[in-house]
């Protein structure tokens, strides 16, 4: 999980690493944007081999939820 948070956080340039916790609602971060959301989906596919669509992502708002989704769909 810690590694997942780090991989998630690295997609942001200006948000402090300390702001990223499992329960962080990433949609509320100032830096959250459509560019970063695509980067997150690309990262998850590359690092964890799980294809997440924007439709899936829409149902997700915390890093924990995304992590659980990825774990569930890992092959």
């Amino acid at each position, binding site marked *: 999980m810690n590694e997942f948070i780090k991989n998630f956080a690295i997609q942001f340039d200006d948000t402090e690493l300390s702001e990223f916790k499992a329960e962080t609602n990433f949609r509320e971060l100032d830096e959250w944007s459509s560019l970063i959301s695509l*980067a997150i989906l*690309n990262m998850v596919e590359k690092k964890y081999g799980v294809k997440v669509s924007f439709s899936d992502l829409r149902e997700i708002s915390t890093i924990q939820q995304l992590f659980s989704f990825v774990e569930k769909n890992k092959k």
Partner: protein
Amino acid sequence: MINNPFTLEGKMILVTGASSGIGRSIAIECSRMGAHLILVARNSQRLEEVLHLLHGVGHTYLSINLTSEDELENMVDALPKLDGVASNAGIVKSQVSQLSDRSDLEQIFEINTFSHIRLIQLLQQKKRLNKGASIVFLSSMSGVYCGAIGGSLYGSTKAALNGFTKALALELAPRNIRVNTVNPGMINTGIFDQTVLTKEQFEEDAKRYPLKRYGKPEEIAYAVVYLLSDATAWMTGSSLLLDGGYSVQ
């Protein structure tokens, strides 16, 4: 019809990526204009289905992987002399630059760029292009007229086709062979079903087009027919942009 400048009557035309989307539409519209077609794609079952949609007779298909150098060479060996090529095969990839690596680049360039260029080089080397033939590359508005987030790789592959077109047009002009590109905006083909985007995102995006919708595959096919026909006998090295007005904004 008497003296129709847009006819493809009797022309032998190769269409790659012909099993779906814009390629399938190109094949159908070319057959309506009287061309004999050779369809190329990987999936023979889908090619067979497209073959049944064609008008007229004398059409055939070859099922190959265009990114395989051996298969490509064997295919060109088996081809008759051509009057036209619609070089269309391609994939999309929605990926931000920061998360892309060499393998991503290689994957998309292999099919979207290298296979197109290698096809033409082999057609030249093996003398499969008739004098007066017309080559049309399916490029894009993306990478040439505008960009999109996640489209840096895709746009690069398409811009490369535009670059190749210009010098190739000069090198083939002495044989009266013409080379042009068609550059479409977003077309409803299903190709984007493979991406991560939602239906709502597409609907929202379509509203950004002055003509308020994405294009239809046949609207691109008509432009390809135009470039393959003798109506454009004095047109080479050019790009034909069809984007519902998107990039003038």
